């Protein structure tokens, strides 16, 4: 299986981080970065990671089933994750989630027909003091208002990138 040079370089770094006889440690980091490039965890990817880390395919497959970020089905180009856990719940996270479902016509872990957007109701993403919080792929959005969520979803549906959408700014560096 071939990957981009960037991912290959990352894999090389991962394998060098752990003791020589502990390459299994690289399984989860490899999967979590590789799936961004391969769009999902395929059987081919499982075989490749198993080979590179010197473990069985089953040892790779069993972690795929355990970790919520690892997915065998492709997500939308922009994976919109809305937190409804306690701190977000108290300030409107659940309402944002309902709004997103209504607006897009899709539900939890579903993709839009054109593959641009997928939705996920997520557990606490560590932005409790700046709730309600949303993550689009790996970018954080804090203090999200219903108006901002509308703009974000409209913009993404119209083919824009998140950074091209006005009035909605990611927070992380």
């Amino acid at each position: 299986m071939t990957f981009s040079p960037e991912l290959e370089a990352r894999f090389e770094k991962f394998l060098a981080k752990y003791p020589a006889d502990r390459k299994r440690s690289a399984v989860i980091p490899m999967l979590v970065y590789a799936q961004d490039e391969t769009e999902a965890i395929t059987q081919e990817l499982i075989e490749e990671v198993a080979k590179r880390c010197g473990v069985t395919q089953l040892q790779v497959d069993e972690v795929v089933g355990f970790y919520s970020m690892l997915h065998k089905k492709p997500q939308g180009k922009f994976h919109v994750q809305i937190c409804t856990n306690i701190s977000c719940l108290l300030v409107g996270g659940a309402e944002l989630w309902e709004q997103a479902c209504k607006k897009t016509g899709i539900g939890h872990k579903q993709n839009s027909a054109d593959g641009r957007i997928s939705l996920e109701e997520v557990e606490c993403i560590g932005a409790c003091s700046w709730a309600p919080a949303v993550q689009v792929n790996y970018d954080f959005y804090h203090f999200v208002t219903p108006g901002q969520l509308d703009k974000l979803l409209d913009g993404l549906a119209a083919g824009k990138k998140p950074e091209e959408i006005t009035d909605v700014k990611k927070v992380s560096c």
Partner: protein
Amino acid sequence: MRYNPPSPLETPVLSRRFRLPNSQSIDTYLATDGYKGFEKATGMTQDEIIGEVKTSILRGRGGAGFPTGMKWGFVPRTSPKPKYIVVNADESEPGTCKDRLLIEFDPHQLIEGVLIAGLAVGAQQGYIYIRGEFRYLIGVMDKAIDEAYAKGYLGDNILGKGIKFHLATHSGAGAYECGEESALLESLEGKRGNPRIRPPFPAVAGAYQCPTILNNVETFCAVPAIILNGGLWYAGLGTPKNGGTRMFCLSGHVNKPGVYELPMGFNLMRMINEVGGGIRGGKKLKAVVPGGSSCPILKADECDLAMDYDTVAAAKSMLGSGGVVVLDEDTCMVNFALRIMRFYAHESCGWCIPCREGTTWLKKLLTRFHEGQGQRSDIVMIGDLSRNMLGRTFCPLGDAAAMPTIAIVEKFREEFEAHLDGKPCPYENIGSRLVTGNGLAA
């Protein structure tokens, strides 16, 4: 910059560089006493370093509050096996968002804390386990690690003193359970995040079955200042048996939610009213979760207390991970209990039956209640099921699900009764909860 304005009531120790420009860079760090604690520690014996940490009364900031110096003292330093330092940056306890800031705005402080821990037990390798959702933090941390290598603070011959220490980040992939220390170690080894039976504890058999120091981000971040200024100085910032400051994550129905560094023992009502600007919309306080979702809830009249481990424990709750979640009078406690249980049912790793089945059945019962189909006997059953989970699981996740549930049912029984006999939730039509946080929203 930080994501909320600071409060004048703060005592910035761990967060003192947050407001500096380029606070992540090693140049900023070195210009503000950076790595001086480590340099001082290179001239100390292992017993002196551990002694200083013991004197500081630093207690684990992940939630359990175990004395850090004592934990470090458990590592068998004469063991021929390699020793490891592992940082728990799998921050995922609902209500908690402090470790994210500590890494984002001062990654070198964490590296320095880890380096000192390495000296204390003779470790030469460290790993920082960062939750997968914090992808950008892995970038921040990797960059800081590269800078530390370039300036000679990491490597085979640190500062030319013959000290060897290597450090690397490790990405998680979405599992609350991996914040539990033994599950984290399983995950670090590339396996499912199921907890291990203890003993042996990580100090004796941790990463790769070798002696390991495993602490929360905030715990390591306190160490450089402790070594530099002395354990007594740090201890003096807090209350007896509860040294130092704490990163409190204030969230929920307050006017100024945010992460604030306050002295240990800071009064909870002052935190809500003076730091947090009081309850939004002039509403009344109903309850507070004092330290993340797993901590038993405190009713409004129980909240006039000092926020340190022992005082909160005396009030039959926990200081936990510092996540202070404030609930106003319009909050439906049945819905709140249900949301907590949905979380634990989702995150139970399934390894042991009391937790896997208990959380699932509690979720079903609470859902039925919230939908108005609850039966009077369910109130008793929710309590019984929860109590039967306590202390009967491999790891504390079962307790974490049971403890808040027991407290909510005991303290707000009348709200459960108000949902009986098909009655609609009395809080259903309170109106939109959406009020923009503190005016910082874009």
